[in-house]
């Protein structure tokens, strides 16, 4: 979810927003809390080939494509989504909400996520299998 920055409270993104960014949830990234411009995820962090990418989406502000020939795409373009039939089992001690700005945002925006989680028990062989498959 993307909202206008704190000065505007919880208002929806303004129609003058011309920025764009890609955001995602990375398991085990260990990046901490970093302000815009400080953290740079690895160049392949948001590729589908990164097994530690749990979910991701692209955001395009309403005014981000006005000068282009094609009309503005949807504001939110979901890329990697969580599958309800094949759940993503996080086997790291942290997940990070990470974003990479494409076009600088016109105004501050608040990016927030909420995950529905379930705590499950794994036997050793299942844990080993997940460790093998979820390694970059």
């Amino acid at each position, binding site marked *: 979810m993307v909202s206008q*920055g*704190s000065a505007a409270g919880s208002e929806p993104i303004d129609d003058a927003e011309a*920025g764009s*960014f890609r955001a995602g949830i990375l398991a085990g*990234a*260990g*990046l*901490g*809390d*970093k*302000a*815009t*411009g*400080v*953290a*740079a*995820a690895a160049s392949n962090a948001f590729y589908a080939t990164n097994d530690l990418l749990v979910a991701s989406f692209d955001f395009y502000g309403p005014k981000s494509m006005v000068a282009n020939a094609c009309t503005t795409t949807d504001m939110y373009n979901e890329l990697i989504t969580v599958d*309800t*039939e094949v*759940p993503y089992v*996080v086997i*790291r*001690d*942290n*997940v*990070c*909400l*990470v*974003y*990479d*700005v494409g076009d*600088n*945002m*016109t*105004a*501050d*925006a*608040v*990016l*927030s*996520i*909420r*995950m*529905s*989680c*379930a*705590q*499950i028990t794994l036997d*050793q062989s299942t844990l080993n299998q997940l460790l093998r498959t979820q390694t970059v």
Partner: protein
Amino acid sequence: MAYNIKDVFYLSTSTTITGSTANGGSAQLDLSAYIDPIARESPKQSV
């Protein structure tokens, strides 16, 4: 896949993307409280 309601919970976080600023940022969710990596075994009796 069905889960027991007692094992289900929400995790949320947020971060501010500063206007007119390039590159990226992050917000971390610490999951260590939900992970119990130590396998528990009953102690083996030695004769």
